[in-house]
Structure formats: structure tokens, C-alpha cells
């Protein structure tokens, strides 16, 4: 596969046109796929390339009804110029009828102007040209269907529909599979996985998020899209005290664990001594058995949670199962977070989404089979670095490089990251 930085085009080698069409039908970030008939920096170079590499195909397509489309990336052509360009393809020697509606040979001329932002906007000539036969469009058209603006039940933590679908793709969500989201919130990831036919389970420590209100809750989102048959269940739980039976029975895990000061990562438990035994209300009733009981929670290190997620994934995913996890690239003190590792999980991709002031990664891990695990790999536990927590160590490092500025300002925590 060839990719060009700053260009939206890439050249791939696939087994067949059918394979290309199938691939694109699942793609969320691509827009189309074309059989490459030729490419070059100028129309002359393009012609030479087309004639040298595609004469066999051109013979095959010679009598098919055809049409041309000219598509410019970051450039424009006047109608007159478009016509001139299309007419310059006479060398293809096509004999079929020109048909806008029933073309069997759907030819596209793709012009890549690759905008250079340091130069004035409209460069007059494209940098590179492609001639392609259209094979199939992408799955991108479902993105607006799942747009959060149209979804009945969302919250500030709901994942953008395009990214949720990309995540479901990386998790390899397909019919028959069982996929779990332990931080399901309003169900964005499960909905995306269900779109691709997987059966889904979600859980969250916040019961209100799952229950919502009448007609507006996680399940109603599935009803909105007609995906009820793929909704297995949701339940309320803390991942660090999971009720899920340990064993290799999940095909995939997708999640966006909460981070940032405002959302505050919490797990069950309290340091208070009086809560270390059963609590009774004034009238003698047992507190935790009352229907309105809310268990205490405590703050938890985000990095420790990432390690817990990896441990959980290694214990629960079948071989080749995928863990897809979002995480910020830096913590709320602007210290870079290392990509978590586990001997049973191999990273298959790291995708970065950059915002103005921060960025986040989508990590995909593959559960490798036990026989492939490197038994000598030592897992570096974050709490064990030189007897201090990595956070402490990193804060120190940051203050060191800052030259130990005023303690009050260096303790200010950054804004809440969980937006978008």
C-alpha cells in the first residue's frame, strides 16, 4: 500500500474488485475505491502510464456504456476546462455509448492539488492525477444516520458517531460476535458495534446513565435504530469489582474510560474507617439493602485503570479478540501518558485524534494465543517505579523542567479533557 502524506489518496493492492467493494462497504473514513488505470504528475504522464499498464483492461471495457467524472481535491476547474480534460481521453479508444445513468464503466479523473497552506489558496495545476474505474462507495453514508444530534439519548461523554463506528470497525464487530463496553455511558460504542451486526453488552458504574428516563435511555437508543435484537443487556458495575465470570468468552471489548478532573475516575470503596463494616440506619435497617442506597466511591488513578482494563481484556478475550480503547495522550498535568502494554495483548494500531490543546489515541490490541506469549516479558507495574508512583515521578519531572515555578500555579490542573 502506498500512502502520501497530506494526500487523501492511497494506492492499495487487493485480490479482486469484489474484495475492494467489500472492504469499502465497511469503511467509515474512506469515500470510494477505484480500479487504478493509471496515474502521473501531468496529463501526458498519466496517458503514458494508462497505456502502459492498462491496455488489457481497456480492451475488456472497450464496448461498455461509460461516463466520466472529474473530481478535484482542493482545486477547481471551470466547466469549459472540465470538458477539455475529459475530451483529452480520446486515446482510451472507447467505443461504447456515453451514458450518465447506466454507465457500466464509471471512469473518474481524480486531481490532487494537495493544498500547501503557506501558498495562496488556488494553485492552478494539480500535483498528481489518477484515472480510475469506480468500484464501490464507502460505508461513510451511515455516519449521519447515527449523528449524536439526532440521537434521542446522549450526554456530554457520548462518543461522536463517526469515531464510534471507526472504533467498532477496529474491534472487528461482525454478526455473531459478542462485544462488551465496560464504560458504556449512553451506549455509543455498543450502538456502533450493533450497527455492524455484533451482539453487545454494556455496563457502567453510573446507573443513572444506563437507566436514563422513560423513553430516553441506553435501550431506547437501540430501539431508535432498530438494533434491539443485538442488545443483550446492560448492568451497573465497577470494572475493578466486576460480576463477569472470568473466562475467554468475549470477542471484543470497546471503551472510552473516563479521565480528566471534572468527570473524575471513580471505583467502589471508601477509605473511611466507619464504612469498613456494615452500616445501619438509625431505625436499625441495613443501609446497603435499601432501594435508594448509593455506594461510596473513591478516586482512582487513570493509569491504574488502563492496566486493569488490559488485565481484564487478557483474561476475557478469545484468541485474536480485540480490545479498542481510547485514552488521552497526556494527563491533566500535560505529562505524556505511556501506551499501556501487556504480554498477552499485541498492539495492532494506534490512531491519534488531535484537538487544539490536546489529543487522544485510539489503541487497538489483539489477544494473542497463550502459546505465543513471551513468558519472560516483565510487566512494568506503574506503582513500582523506584518505589514512587509514576504520577509522582512525572510531576516531579515536569516541575524540574519548569524550573520549579511557584508551587500554587504548577499544581493547577488542566481543564476537563472529556469533550467531543
Amino acid at each position, binding site marked *: 500500500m502506498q500512502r502520501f502524506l497530506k494526500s487523501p489518496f492511497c494506492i492499495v493492492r487487493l485480490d479482486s474488485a469484489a474484495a475492494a467493494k467489500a472492504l469499502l462497504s465497511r469503511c467509515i473514513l474512506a469515500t470510494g475505491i477505484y480500479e487504478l488505470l493509471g496515474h502521473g504528475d501531468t496529463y501526458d504522464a498519466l496517458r503514458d502510464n494508462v497505456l502502459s499498464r492498462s491496455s488489457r483492461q481497456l480492451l475488456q471495457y472497450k464496448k461498455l456504456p461509460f461516463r466520466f467524472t472529474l473530481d478535484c481535491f482542493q482545486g477547481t476547474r471551470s466547466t469549459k476546462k472540465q470538458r477539455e480534460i475529459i475530451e483529452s481521453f480520446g486515446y482510451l479508444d472507447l467505443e461504447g455509448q456515453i451514458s450518465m445513468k447506466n454507465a457500466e464503466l464509471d471512469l473518474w479523473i481524480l486531481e490532487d492539488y494537495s493544498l500547501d497552506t503557506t501558498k495562496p489558496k488556488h494553485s492552478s495545476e494539480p500535483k498528481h492525477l489518477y484515472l480510475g474505474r469506480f468500484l464501490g462507495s464507502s460505508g461513510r453514508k451511515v455516519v449521519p444516520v447515527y449523528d449524536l444530534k439526532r440521537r434521542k439519548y446522549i450526554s456530554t461523554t457520548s462518543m461522536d458517531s463517526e469515531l464510534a463506528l471507526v472504533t467498532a470497525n477496529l474491534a472487528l464487530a461482525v454478526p455473531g460476535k459478542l462485544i462488551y463496553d465496560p464504560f458504556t455511558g449512553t451506549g455509543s460504542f455498543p450502538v456502533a458495534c450493533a450497527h455492524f451486526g455484533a451482539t453487545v453488552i454494556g455496563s457502567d458504574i453510573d446507573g443513572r446513565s444506563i*437507566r436514563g428516563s422513560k423513553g430516553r435511555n441506553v435501550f431506547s437508543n437501540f430501539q431508535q435504530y432498530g438494533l434491539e435484537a443485538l442488545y443483550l443487556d446492560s448492568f451497573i458495575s465497577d470494572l475493578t469489582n466486576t*460480576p463477569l465470570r472470568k473466562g475467554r468468552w468475549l470477542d471484543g471489548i470497546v471503551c472510552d474510560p473516563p479521565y480528566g478532573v471534572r468527570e473524575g475516575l471513580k471505583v467502589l470503596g471508601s477509605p473511611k474507617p466507619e464504612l469498613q463494616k456494615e452500616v445501619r440506619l438509625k431505625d436499625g435497617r441495613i443501609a446497603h439493602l435499601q432501594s435508594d442506597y448509593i455506594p461510596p466511591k473513591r478516586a482512582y488513578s487513570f493509569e491504574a485503570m488502563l492496566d486493569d482494563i488490559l488485565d481484564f481484556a487478557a483474561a476475557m478475550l478469545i484468541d485474536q479478540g480485540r480490545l479498542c480503547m481510547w485514552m488521552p495522550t497526556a494527563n491533566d498535568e500535560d505529562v505524556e501518558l505511556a501506551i499501556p502494554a501487556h504480554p498477552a495483548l499485541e498492539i495492532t494500531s494506534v490512531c491519534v485524534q488531535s484537538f487544539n490543546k490536546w489529543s487522544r489515541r485510539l489503541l487497538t490490541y489483539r489477544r494473542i494465543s497463550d502459546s505465543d506469549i513471551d513468558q519472560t516479558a516483565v510487566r512494568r507495574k506503574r506503582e513500582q517505579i523506584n518505589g514512587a508512583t509514576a504520577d509522582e515521578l512525572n510531576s516531579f519531572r515536569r516541575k524540574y523542567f519548569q524550573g520549579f515555578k511557584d508551587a500554587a500555579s504548577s499544581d493547577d490542573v488542566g481543564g476537563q479533557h472529556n469533550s467531543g
Partner: protein
Amino acid sequence: MKLLTLNFLTCARKACKTSAASFPLHPREAELEQVELDMNPQFIRNVLPRVEWEAMRSISQELGLPSLPDTAPGPEELADAEGGPTQILKDLHTLLMETTIASGKLLCANCGHEYAIKEGIANFLLPSHLV
């Protein structure tokens, strides 16, 4: 909560994880509902080998549902000659995906703790003295 999900749940307390008695959780005061759902044969075939069949049998019995065979149906019993769903597959779908506990409690036979199910959603949050 669908009966299939129940087959994947144990007591949430770490102390109970090592005890066999913490699985399966036992429904108590359970209000069952049959909710019609489109059948997904591919999913049932994929998930059946992961189901703890003995636990499914015992829970089915506790709930007064028709008794299940001693062993789980094999893959050959789940598709007919044309690859279509068999009656066994349809029955499994009804049992696993259409039989739900709308409300009630789930009891851990090891520690006695009960988790509440309300409107089909179970709550596995523990008070801090049980964490």
C-alpha cells in the same frame, strides 16, 4: 436481564471469586417476562460453546422452566440440511434471548449477598465493607 447474560455473571466480591458457589447467581422473587426478539442464529451458534450448560440447566429448573437436556446441543443440531434454524435453535433463542428477569434479586450462594434487578437492569455495586 436475559437468561444468557445470567450465565456470564458471578458474585462481584473478590472474596467470592475463588468459590464455586458464587456461580451461578440464583434468582429470587424473580418476575419473568418473555420479550419477543428477532432470532440471530449465527450468534447463538457462536455463543453456545461459551455457555456453562450445567448452570443453565440448574437455573432453568430453579425458575420452573421446562427442563433442559443433560448436555448442550452440538453444532450439528443447530442447523438443518439447508442451513436453516432447527427447532432446537429456536428453543435456545427463546430460552437465552427472550426469557428475561424484569425484576427480582440475584443471590450469591457463597456469601449471601443479593443484587437487585430493576426494570431489567441489575445493580452489582457493592458497599465499601464488601469491596
